[in-house]
């Protein structure tokens, strides 16, 4: 009995704390996406979109169909650069603007998150 209650409690809290992975196109199409708290956005850093000042880094994530502007403060992984894949974690301000608080590290230049691979493949066609 106690076990069932605790599993229920764990699952409930799991549901409150998951991060959904979205592409810029998902964000455009999803009607009530703003109400979600934290999400991950994945795609490619658009060429010549990167702007840096002392407080933040701004860039555009594109999935080759739609794009979204991102503002980020924090460490960038070593393989972060224009034209490369990126996954950013944070909150949406509106459908075109995303404030990231984490950019996921990748250790291998050939590594592409599985989520991203599918999307990029689909849109490149």
């Amino acid at each position: 009995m106690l076990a069932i209650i605790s599993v229920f409690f764990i699952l409930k809290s799991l549901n409150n704390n998951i991060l959904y992975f979205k592409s810029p196109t998902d964000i455009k199409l999803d009607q009530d996406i703003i109400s979600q708290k934290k999400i991950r956005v994945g795609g490619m850093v658009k060429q010549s979109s990167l702007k840096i000042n002392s407080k933040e880094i701004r860039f555009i994530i594109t999935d080759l169909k739609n794009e979204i502007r991102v503002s980020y403060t924090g460490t960038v992984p070593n393989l972060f650069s224009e034209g490369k894949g990126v996954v950013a974690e944070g909150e949406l301000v509106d459908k075109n603007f995303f404030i990231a608080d984490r950019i996921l590290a990748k250790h291998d230049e050939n590594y592409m998150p599985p989520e991203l691979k599918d999307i990029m493949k689909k849109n490149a066609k």
Partner: protein
Amino acid sequence: MLSSIGSSLLFINILLGITIILFSLQNLNDGKNLINKKIYHICVFQNTLIIICFFTLVSAFIFSDFSLITVYQNSHSLKPIFYKITGTWGNHEGSLLLWVIILTIFSFFFLLYNKDHPKKYRIYTLIIQNILIIGFLLFLLFSSNPFSIISPTPKEGLGLNPILQDPALAIHPPLLYIGFVGSSIYFSAAIASLLTGYSGKLFALSIKNWVLISWSFQTLGILTGSIWAYYELGWGGFWFWDPVENASLLPWFAMTALIHSLIVLEKRNLFYFWTIILCLLTFILSVTGTFLVRSGILNSVHTFANDPARGLNILIFLTLMILFSVLLLFKKFKSNNYNLNSNSKETFILVNNWFMMFYLITVLLGTVYPIFTEVLNNSKISVGPPFYNSVIIPILILFLFFMSIGPQAKWIKNQFNNLKLLAIILTGGIIINFLIIYFFKSHNILSSFIIISSLFLIISSLKDTIELIENKNFNFARVISHIAFGFLILSIGLNYNFSLEKDFNLKLGETQKFKSYLIKFESLQLKDFKNYKAVIGEFKISNSQNNSELFLNPEIRIYENPSTLTYEASIRSGLLKDYYITMSNIDRSDYYNIKFQKKPFMIWIWISVIFISLGGFLRVFKNASKNY
């Protein structure tokens, strides 16, 4: 040449495993009470060959024999000799060979050191263990042979991933594997116990030390991985709930539960089937962890490059293992009624096990949940630290309170005659907590509870220690581990609550102000090292509060083979706090991204974990000196 030596040694080892099983089966029915000497001899031979096999691979790495795919993919002739050697287990194939070696050695030592136990039980354990050895050897030989050759032979290797070229990570896999694979021996012993009906106190005694050894090594293995992530990955913390970290934590919970339930089995002959379940669970979780990490099923930020076929093979092996052990368990299971007094040591230990299971289920669900949602409704999600923090931390407070009063409880029937003292200790904890809040001038209710409950644990365990000294009973293993656990949680609480962190972008010569700190980017220089170039920054951190100054030198390293950039954090560790800076260049612009952190009591987190595992080692020595 080395390739054919290695491959044939692996093959001979499979034959030896089969021979041991056949001899053992024959030996079972010879009516004598002793195990045939021949079996010992074959085991010695088996151990010698697998160790030679390992050194064959090590020498292939030392002499850079790039005709082996594994060496070609993970080594380079210009690499320092130390990392050539540690590169042997820094990859999938080599680490699996290490896995098999530990299986083999543990199997032999278990046979050697359990002479007081019945022959039938020891022989069955040996047979099961050799089935595991053969299984992993087959897997090694057919889907991840470290001795596979590549032709034509490449002139130069691809190099070891620079982030793996690190002392902490050199010893991390062996330590963790002794924990992971060490649990195989009580998996085998548990099955042998079910098959032969050898149960109760004597069974507990036969596996006790093995559980303690694997648990202590597992603890150290997790620690080295965590320290590595702290300074090498530049994440600036000690735990990130990354799937790979979770995979190492799951068997740890099961082992911790097992250590405790074994005490009850030994002293009171209770919880036999529960202990068996924990034995089986620990090894199954260890293999599952490896499977999840290696197959690439879990989307972790630090996985080896992966191959689905390997994952599938481990999955088949794992399924067989689970099916067999569950069937056997159901067949042999007898429900036995025991009366537990709700206020007794037995109950408190059972409560410990409930908590461990709760943590285990939480971490397991959090880790595998994304796989299910992906399969069920194709939505891609990830589970982050907020989930674990919100579930684990509140329960931890309760756990610490039980951990404080549990160990003093008496067997069978306990009475609390020291409630007054406990109240005094609790009040002491609360007062210290307020002093901490006053000193740091910031607070948060949840972490106050954490601090109070961990202080409660530390003080009541200390009181326990004093009683132990008075009783002339110098077994400190338990109190050392428990006090260290209290300190671990206390340090984590303080660290979590009072850390300062700031991210900003600076150009050379610029200064950033943050609270009472001024961080100046003073200079930048380029240096050549043997196998990498380094861009070294110099940062002056001045604190206006006490007019102190310190210099930190984070690096960006540029490795040639393979060409990779890594960021080396610069850390000034102190007894009270760590200062931590990482520097990264943003897409070749003039700006450098700086992460500055002040992390109080960081070093105490590492020290506490060392002491937790020390408790385990001490108990092993104590048991060993008692028996021989």
